[in-house]
């Protein structure tokens, strides 16, 4: 019997010790943390084929999008929990500073009745939409192939709760000043049956049940989010500025800071997927499959933003340019 070699201490985790440079804090605390991906046949230390094991085998392990080393994915922003709170506490201080100032100036009293009506129709129902993004991001978190992907999805989940929170807060403020307009009461009906929202709701309901983890990521981060960020955030924000609602314009911009961070990691993950050339066609298939629903959603919503006549056109163009820039 040959004596096994005696292992020596390393400067970092064994799996990072091959790299030429010192690992960053981000790498030390974020890499190789999913163990359920280790045994493709049996995700858990349980029966290999009970119902949840089958779910993970089918929708994660057997996804048509393959990569030999998902753990090599890195968040381009290298966000860790500690920095996430630093960033977002600062952002929230800014947003709540705005809310405070505008409320002191009695901003809501000065809004025109027609704009107030439009806010009730096109703005405050956003909380259902944002919550669906929150739920959907949490699905990607639990199904992703690597912890570095899950972490991006975790912070994205929380960001969507942030957007939901801003919307709920504004809903309560508007209800105080414009009691008769139905703020806090009518959003669910709007979300369920207003033609401005129907196609968006169809898109997000169907997107939420696209269970393959890679399709789930594609439909949320490459289709749903860029579409609604163009329509219900950016275009609505522009419309707000043209109606004297400076506050909503600034709030929208603040949320788009999160959105651009989400786009950055999405771009990085697509790049990772495209390291395997065979993946390109499947990604294109999904984009072709989902774009018609996305276009319908953008068109239906934007037609009511009369002050921004090219809102739909520009929103769709932005999504398509994003795809083209990814090579899809």
């Amino acid at each position, binding site marked *: 019997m040959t004596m096994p070699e005696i292992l020596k201490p390393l400067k970092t985790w064994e799996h990072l010790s091959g790299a030429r440079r010192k690992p960053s804090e981000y790498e030390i605390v974020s890499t190789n943390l999913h163990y359920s991906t280790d045994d493709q046949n049996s995700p*858990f230390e349980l029966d290999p084929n009970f119902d949840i094991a089958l779910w993970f085998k089918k929708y994660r392990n057997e996804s048509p999008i393959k990569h030999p080393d998902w753990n090599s994915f890195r968040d381009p922003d290298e966000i860790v929990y*500690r920095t996430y709170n630093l960033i977002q*506490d600062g952002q929230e201080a800014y947003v709540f500073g705005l809310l405070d100032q505008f409320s002191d100036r009695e901003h809501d009293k000065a809004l025109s009745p027609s704009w107030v009506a439009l806010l009730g129709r096109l703005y405050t129902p956003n909380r259902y939409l944002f919550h669906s993004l929150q739920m959907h991001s949490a699905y990607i978190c639990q199904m992703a192939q690597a912890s570095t992907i899950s972490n991006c999805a975790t912070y994205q989940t929380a960001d969507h709760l942030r957007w939901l929170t801003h919307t709920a807060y504004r809903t309560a403020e508007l209800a105080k000043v414009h009691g008769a307009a139905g703020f806090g009461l009518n959003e669910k009906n709007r979300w*369920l049956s207003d033609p401005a929202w129907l196609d968006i709701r169809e898109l997000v309901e169907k997107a939420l049940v696209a269970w393959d983890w890679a399709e789930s990521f594609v439909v949320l981060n490459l289709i749903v989010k860029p579409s609604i960020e163009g329509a219900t955030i950016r275009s609505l924000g522009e419309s707000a500025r043209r109606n004297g609602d400076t506050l909503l314009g600034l709030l929208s911009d603040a949320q788009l800071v999160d959105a651009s961070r989400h786009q950055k990691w999405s771009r990085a993950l697509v790049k990772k997927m495209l390291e395997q050339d065979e993946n390109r066609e499947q990604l294109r298939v999904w984009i072709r499959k989902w774009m018609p629903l996305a276009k319908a959603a953008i068109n239906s919503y934007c037609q009511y933003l009369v002050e921004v006549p090219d809102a739909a056109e520009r929103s769709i163009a932005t999504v398509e340019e994003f795809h083209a820039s990814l090579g899809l």
Partner: protein
Amino acid sequence: MTILDRSEWYDIARETNWTPTFVTEEELFPEVMTGGLGVTRDKWEKYDEPYKTSYPEYVKIQREKDAGAYSVKAALERNKLFETADPGWISILKSHYGGLALGEYAAMSAEARMTRFGPAPGMRNMATFGMLDENRHTQLQLYFPHEHCSKDRQFDWAVKAYHTNEWAAIATRRMVDDLFLGRDAISIAIMLTFAFETGFTNMQFLGLSSDAAEVGDYTFSSLISSIQTDESRHAQIGGPALEVLIANGKKAEAERMVYQGIAGAWRLFCVLTGPSMDYNTPLAHRKHSFKEFMQEWIIGQFERSLIDLGLDLPWYWDKLVAEFDYMHHAYQLGLWYWRPTIWWNPAAGVTPDERDWLEEKYPGWNDTFGKCWDVIIENVVAGRMDKTYPETLPILCNMSQLPICAIPGNGWNVKDYPLEYQGRTYHFNSEIDRWMFQQSPERYRDHMSLVDRLLAGQIQPPDIGGILKYMNIAPGECGDDAHKYAWADAYRVNPFSKSAA
């Protein structure tokens, strides 16, 4: 200043349920991922999380907490604790990080399951903070041990352990996977947050934190007490879920989930926390015995929270309470004897003074567990070290994946609790473990314990060398006695004073 009070908008932020029309309700919340025992989603409108917070408050408070935890670490960086602390204490740190860090990450996935598939918006929002919390706990408990990597290869196991087939890692994964990572959202709310977090994490985090402060390890003490402040918040996701189930005629089923959660968590704490507190913590710094902690946290406090919810105590309560007296002593023997197969150096913890303490806290210890240690001590003193090492594996429980063991010596009660199921014989450590299997055999049926794998020829060669290779543990990282057997010197001087008893 005109900022609205949280109560003025909180409810709006949790009115986010709607009935889908483009897909069915069952498609959006599939039974396999949501669970819920057939209680329809409208009944969950009553769900009301008792601990309320909001996004801006969360990021502010957590930023401050992290500043605290990391600054304590920075301030103490140059303190030579690692060089001066008792080796038993260092072993606690290694077993803690290896056993917990990636389990925290699995808890993040479980919180994400509740965020996506939880039936109530309040649950989904609270679980979003829970995802962030568990992300924090993973990162803290990797960042802190990482600095020790360059001094001691065993610290690599903070991230490595869960990726191996080392036996304690298998047992830990079994518990984590069965109680939360492999469960539906509602079961997670009950088994993870109510049973595991409300019942048990207090012990690991507050119990060990006070031991850490006693030892002078303020970095670890402040780290884990900071973690526990998050746990005590998101642990409250489970209580209102139980209330909804009980209100809708599912008391018996809800109780069963709680009972499974407690039984699973108990095994893990028994093997990790029990030996940490009663053997690895230096005697001078032990404030309470593991049993006393169990009595305070599980009988004193957790039993109260069961009763408050109108739940009956588990059928096995007396059996479980009886185990407080012996089970972790049996696991300690196993950990020490099979020390080349674990990623930390267990302290024997059986100097004459320590035996007096054990006898005082656990009357009869010398006559039972002490008898086994007598043999080990004789061999160590006589230099027959080969007799103190294992040659193969013990019989493992098909539920806990831990050795089947109990009281040796004059109190002998070791017994296998077998079960025939679909042509295979399963072995269990207790009636409780066998009952767990019977609750949902399909979850466990085709799983093989390490011994099953050995017998099936999956581990080659089928000797201790092959087993260590299969476990991916090698010299330089595998365990040995924490004090390099120095504790045995007391017996070399006077071999007959084995105990004061």
